């Protein structure tokens, strides 16, 4: 049941993200991309399974190894979060420059010039 709930939620997040990316307002496009990358991160973590314990072992020594969630996806997502910040910031600065160059952040108007 958890999986179904997650599947529906992720679907909704992606749908909303897509809807935002289709707007002409550049800021909303950036939101859309952010939303979708959040959803993708959640999806990856979901793939690792939600049932195990945190992948941190006591005292650094191997214990019961079967009981933790997939650490690989977490490593993937950890870097993805930081890179996501970098790209969001980049997109925002780009937006700002678009505004500076064209005096508008409406993609329709930018193109019309």
């Amino acid at each position, binding site marked *: 049941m958890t999986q179904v709930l997650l599947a529906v939620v992720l679907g909704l997040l992606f749908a909303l993200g897509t809807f935002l990316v289709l707007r002409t307002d550049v800021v909303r496009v950036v939101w859309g991309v952010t939303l979708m990358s959040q959803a993708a991160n959640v999806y990856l973590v979901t793939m690792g399974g939600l049932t195990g314990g*945190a992948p941190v072992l006591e005292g*650094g020594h191997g214990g019961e190894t079967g009981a933790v969630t997939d650490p690989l996806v977490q490593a993937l997502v950890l870097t993805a*979060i*930081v890179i996501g910040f970098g790209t969001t910031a980049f997109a925002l600065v780009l937006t700002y420059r678009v505004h500076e160059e064209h005096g508008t952040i409406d993609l329709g108007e930018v193109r019309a010039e």
Partner: protein
Amino acid sequence: MSGGSLDREPTVIARTVTRLVVPVILVTAVALLLQGHNLPGGGFIAGVLTTTAFALIYIIYGLDYLETELLHRRPTVPFGTGTGIVREYGNVFAAGLAVAGGGGLAAVALGFPFLTQGVAFFEGVPVYHEFEIASAVVFDLGVYAVVVGALLTILAVVGAE
């Protein structure tokens, strides 16, 4: 910070709290960096946490505070990208990349594949009894430097606009 909604002078409370909180955040960040190998933490988390500490200073005290009050020098005007503190942030992430990559090359020099990490145990160290050092700490330090340098560059440049 100039113009718009963030223009108001922060209250004394905000200033005082910042003074207290920033060192705490920085110490936490360093702790997270060092314990990352065995407990939650690591270069990425420590890096973003350090960046928030700086962001807090920027927001409460303004962009030039770091340079005028802490480093006792005149801020570059206009807040240029090729000089001053942005340049130094750039040096930080460049150095971080060099440390991370250089550590990997050290492994090559010792005859292991690129970026092989090793672990060493020292017995009989006072207090700790057994002390573990992983060469991965060097790489983590590189990651930390890159994250801090890059994110602060972005913040400073965007903030200056």
